[in-house]
Structure formats: C-alpha cells, structure tokens
C-alpha cells in the first residue's frame, strides 16, 4: 500500500533523506524512529505530498504520488504532531469541509460516530480557539478518519493527549490496522512503537539504518542478549551507551 523507492530529499547541500526504500502492506504498522534531525518528518511530508522528493518514487495504493497525486491522496490521512485547523470553522464545519474535499457522500453518520468516539459531540459548534490542545488533536483525527483512508501516517500521535486519549489513540491505530489500513507511526516514544508496531524502521542522518521486526533487529545485534527493549536496540544502533552518552 505504501511503497517508497530511492526516496531522497535534499535541502541545499544537506540530504535530509537519502535513498530510502521500504514498503508497508495493508494491516501493517510501521514504526519510524530516529534521533532528532534523522529525517522522519521529512519522510512523512514527502509520503503525503506536502513536499516533493528530490529523487525517488512513492506509490500509495498503487498510485504514483508524482504521476497521480489526486488518486494517491484520496487514500491518505496525515495526522501531524501539531494540529493545524482553520480558525473560523467550527468542529462540525471542519468535518463538513473535509467531507466535501474528499467527496464523502454520507458523511453525517460517520461524523457523528467519530464525534461521539472522540468525545467531541458537545464541542460540535466550537471554534478551534475554544478547544484544548488534546481536543484539537482529536478533531484532526476525526477529519483524518472521516474518508476511511487506507493509508494513515501519524507524526508523534500521542503529543498532548491525556492518558485516556493515549489509550484511545493506540486502539484507533490498531483498529485501523486490523481493518486493513497501512500505517506509519513516527515517534520518539519507543515503548509506543514497541507496543503497536509490527515493523520498525530506524533512520539516522537521513539514512535507513535498519528495517525489520523487533526479532529481526535483535538478531542483527548479536552482542545484545536477553530481554532487550527497543530503547536498548535504538541506543546501540545509533551509537549511544546505555546512559545515552555517545559512544566513540
């Protein structure tokens, strides 16, 4: 469902993402992790068509993002870490607007369901300024899920959510995966990635360091033994000691 082939993004002389290739199948959750500046957000922004890649090919549900951007984008929902909303549209109007953009004919029922699920029903006529950060995040999720996307990309999905919201977000991601969506979750919260992701892709300085299931990654690190967490693996792969200091 998501295919990236030789994805490269260069800013001036800086290669934010270099020759990145991977696939995410339907029903699969890929965790995109890496230190700050590793190129995670740039990768996500390329995958949803916000920024054009310098080189490489991206295919969403079989549609080339470069050649058939509209067909590709109809299948995508991007949920950024910072909720971006229109100041003068109410919660309800955001959903109506999104429905029109994606051509969701009978949006009322799913919109009502989403509002109820995300506990936004009482805020249906509120403007973004009247919402807390968590509520804004929920509204972005509602808008993202309204057109039943087959590809979901989450950038730091737990930011600003309360414990109940966190639990709901995790179950939403897993539920969508069970329903067959291809999902990428970019996060610094390695326990979240460990908990919900089937495969992990670790980026560093724009390059793919490792890609696979947790078992596969662990097998590739023979010097780490026993019950090893993703955090330990991450530190080891990115060249850091257990206390987080950089190894020489």
């Amino acid at each position, binding site marked *: 469902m998501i295919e990236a082939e030789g994805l490269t993004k260069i800013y001036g002389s800086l290669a934010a993402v270099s020759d990145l290739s991977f696939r995410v199948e339907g029903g699969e959750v890929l965790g995109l992790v890496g230190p700050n500046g590793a190129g995670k957000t740039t990768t996500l922004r390329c995958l949803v068509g916000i920024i054009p890649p310098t080189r490489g090919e991206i295919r969403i549900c079989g549609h080339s993002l470069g050649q058939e951007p509209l*067909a590709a984008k109809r299948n995508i929902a991007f949920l950024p870490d910072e909720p971006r909303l229109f100041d003068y549209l109410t919660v309800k109007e955001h959903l109506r607007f999104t429905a029109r953009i994606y051509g969701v004919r009978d949006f009322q029922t799913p919109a009502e369901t989403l509002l109820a699920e995300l506990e936004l029903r009482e805020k249906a006529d509120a403007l973004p300024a009247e919402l807390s950060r968590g509520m804004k995040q929920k509204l972005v999720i509602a808008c993202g899920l309204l057109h039943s996307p087959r590809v979901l990309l989450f950038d730091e999905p737990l930011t600003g959510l309360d414990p109940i919201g966190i639990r709901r977000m995790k179950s939403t991601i897993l539920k969508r995966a069970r329903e067959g969506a291809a999902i990428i979750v970019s996060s610094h919260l390695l326990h979240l990635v460990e908990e919900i992701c089937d495969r992990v892709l670790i980026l560093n300085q724009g390059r793919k360091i490792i890609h696979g299931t947790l078992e596969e990654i662990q097998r590739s690190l023979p010097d780490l033994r026993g019950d090893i967490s993703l955090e330990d693996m991450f530190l080891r792969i990115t060249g850091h000691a257990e206390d987080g200091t950089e190894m020489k």
Partner: protein
Amino acid sequence: MIGTFFYYLVRTSRNRAVSALKRLRQPKYLISALAGLGYLYLVFFRQFLSHPKAARGMPVPLDVDVIPLVETGLALVLLVLVLLPWIWPGRGREGLRFTEAEIQFLFPAPILRRTLIHFRLIRMQLSILFGVLISLVVFGRGRFLDHPIYAMVALWLVYSFLALYYMGTNLTQMSLAEHGVSGFKRQFWTLTLLAVVVVSIGVWLKWFIPPLPATETAGLSDFSAWFVRTTGSGPAYYLLLPFQALVRPAFSPDAAAFLLRLFPALGVLFLAYLWVMRTDVSFEEASLEKARRMAIRLEAARSGNWRRARRAAPKARRPPFQLAPVGFAHTAIFWKNLISAGRLAALRVLPVVVMLVIVLTTMTLRQGSRHELLPMVIGSVAVAMAGALVLIGPIAVRDDLRNDLLQIDLLKTYPISGWGVVLGEVLAPTAILAVMEWLLVLVAALVLPSLGKIHPTVSQRLLVGLSAAFLLPCFSLIGVVLQNAFALLWPGWVELGKSRRQGIEAMGQRLITMVATVLAFVLADIPAGLVFAAVFFLGFWLLGLTVLPIAALVAALVLLGEAGLAIFWLGRLYDKFDVSLEGPGR
C-alpha cells in the same frame, strides 16, 4: 531594582535591534529596508537634509491668535480620550500587560506590587518615547513650532499622562469588578470625581453652549471665537484646565515661559501617578490571563497564524450556504474562505442597506434642486469607493492563498488539483468585492443622474450601470489573482495572513509589492481595454450607446479568460510549490 529593570529593557531593545539588523543579511530584507528608508527620506527627511535652512531656520510658527484655539482643541481631545475608557470599558487595557516570562520571573520574586507597577511604567516609556518621535516627524516636521524640543516634552507629558491614566482606569475598573459594592467604597473618590465630571459636562451642554454664528454671514474667525467662548464658559473652563496645562508647554514662546508652564503639567502628571499608586488592586490574576492570551497570540504569530495573533478569541459565524458533501472541491475552499472573511454579517444586511439607500435617494431626489447636495455626495462617494475597491480591494480582502499558505501543510494533503485550489482561493475575495461593487454601482446609478445639467434617461443609466457591473468584478478578479500570484511566487516577500508587519523593511516590501501590483494590473488590463475600445467604436455606429454593455461584456470575458489562464498557470505553480524551500517562515 530599578537598575535591574533598566538592564532588562536596554538589553531587550538592543538584542531586538541586533536581530533586525541581522535580518538585513538576507537580500529580500535588505532591499526592502533600502526601499523603506528611501520612502522615509523622500516623505519626511528630504527637506531637512536638502534645505536645512528652510526647515530649521525659517519655521512657519502658528499665529499667536490661533494658539489658544489649538490648545483648547487639544485639551478637548484629551478630555474625550480620558472619558473613553468609562464609556467603552476595555480601552487602554495594555497598561498591566506582562509577558509570560515577566510573570514567571517577577511575580514570584520578592518584589513589591508597586515596584511591578514601576516596572510597567518604565517599560511603557520605550513606546512613549518612540511615539513622541514618530508624532513629531509625521505631524510636526518642525515647521509649525518655534521650538520642537518644547513640543517633544509636551508630547511626552501627554503620552505619559494617558498611559498612567489608562493604567489607573484599568485598575479601578478591575477593583469594581472584583469587589462589587465594596469596590465602590474603595474607589469612592475616583467615582465621585468621575460623577462630578459627567454632571459638569451635562450642565455645560445644557446651559453654556452659545448659539452658532449664522452660517450665511459668519467666517472662520467667527467660528473660532465661538469655539473659544464655548470651551471657556461654565464648567468647561475647569474641566479643560488640567489638559490645557499638559499641552501648553508645546506652544511656549521662550525658555522662561516653557519652564513656567512645565510645572503645572508635571503636577497633573504627578497626580495621575499618585492615583495609580494608591489604587490598591491585586492585578496579578488579570495579568496572568492577559499574558496567557498574549502568549497564544505570540505563539500564533510565530507559527505564522497571524489572523489568530490579531484576534485571540474569534467568534463562530453562520456559514454563507449549506455545503453539500459532494461536488467541486474548490467550492469547499470558497465556502471556508467566505466564513473566514467575516463579512457575512455585512453581506446579509446588504438588501436592507440597498433598500435604505433607494428610499433615501428617492426622497432626496423629490425634494427639488435645493437638496442636490446629498445625492451628489452619496453618488460621488459611491463612484469613488467603487473605483477604490478595484484598486485596493484585492489588497485588502485577503481570504485566499495569502491566508491559506500558512496552512499549506494541510492544503497539500488534499486530493485537489492545483488549479482547483487556486480557483477556490480566489473566489471568496472576488465574490465579496463583486457584491460590494454592485451595490455601489446601483447607488451611483440611482443618484448621480440628478447632477448638474446632465439628465440621462433610465435606459442610459441602466446601460452604464450594467457595463460597470460587468467590468468591475472582473477587474477585481484580476487583482485578486495577481495578489495570489505574488504570494505563490514570492511567499517570503508577501505579507501572509492579515498582519501588518512592522519595521522599515516591511514598509519597503509593501512599497515594492504595490508598484509591482499596479504594473501587472495595467499590463493585464491592456488586452481587455483594446477589445473594449474596438467593440465600442465599431458598434457605436450601429447600435449607439446600447453597445456599451456589449463592449463591457466582451472585455469582461477577455479579463475572465486571462484570469482563467493565470489560475491554470498558478495551479501548476502550486503543484510544484515546495513548502520546505519556499514556505512561510523560511
């Protein structure tokens, strides 16, 4: 402690200036700054630098007879400004605003409340001094005053007084809101004084206003004399006294007189200071709330969301129409931008306004020739406004890409083609301008025929009005498309959102954009103009004036075609638009 405050303010100002200077390393800011400086030189400083003698040696001072008039007039303005926060509570609420950082550092610190007020007073001096300088450059330019230094001091006194007064009013109103009835007791003397002022104004208006001089025979001097007599009679004399004391130093003929007038002015200022210091109100909570709102605005501004930065608490508005879930996607953008435009209330009352104008003009037209002034004024204003709308409207109504480029991350994820996005974006401002222009055309067509000896027939009025109705919205569309083209081509140069950025380079940017807009607008209108002329002159022999709307319609179609091509081209630009390289904030 005061030294610490000064350190903070001086370092903050210095660092801000350094940041502004560093920005000049970017060519776009440097060019803009040079353009801004050039503008300032041409408009304000050229006379000082080119003809120093003319500017400094030969001032054109105010006539001695006029000075009392000016003093009284300024005092009256000050009286109104002083009453304003009581009529319209909320004015001047800047007085107690602290930044979040200031609250975090200063409120828990072992500092007296009055020291915090002193801090605010000191900080306000920066803007007061800047205001004095700007006022002197813009209004005075040193030409009307013998001694600009005296004017500077007087302006400082006036601005400082107003700043103190607004702070005191704010504290008093806060105390009233906080303490209810006991608040009235706490603020007894302030409220008593206010009541005395209000009653005095009532008494003055009722019994001390002499009749106006007869308009047929009276000259300017008669009106001046009436004004001085009116403002010097009854309670007005005492009411204006403190304000006259504040402004009088500006008009001192020599140093001795200046010093003599300075003391009463300082006395008024000191009384305002005492009042503020004696107003015992715990303002911390209100300041916290203000700081929070300010922080939201700052955050919004820093993240590029300038509209929110300007209005911290927008209100929900009724959508202009019910958006169907299926249909052209660009209609959704049009719908959203109409809501965002916030002019829907005005649009909804348009029919009422039209009816009122029609009734009013019909009534005035029936009054006969003696009352032609009103229709002439209304009609001329309508024509002037319609013309101004064509030029300024596309710059002023910004609910299009100039706003939405700030949300480009979101827009780019939508499955809409580039031309669809651009079309949706330009529709709302064009529609708003079109409705306003049609209303103005209607008013002008109804009213102007009564002018002078020209009495066009109903059909002639209809033809001219119809032509204008065809052409004006198309001109506006071209203007809006141009503005959006600038936003897409040079997002770093165009002011995104509804902000008015400050600084010399921002001024320069605006000038350059304005010149480019006018040039592009003229170029875009040439083909339509040629087609219009060709159709009109060819058709006039056959159809007479009837050809006018036909020529206008053909020209409008040419303009629409140009706009369509431009939208298609801009759509391709939008598709290739790389947010990471050219997006706002870079």
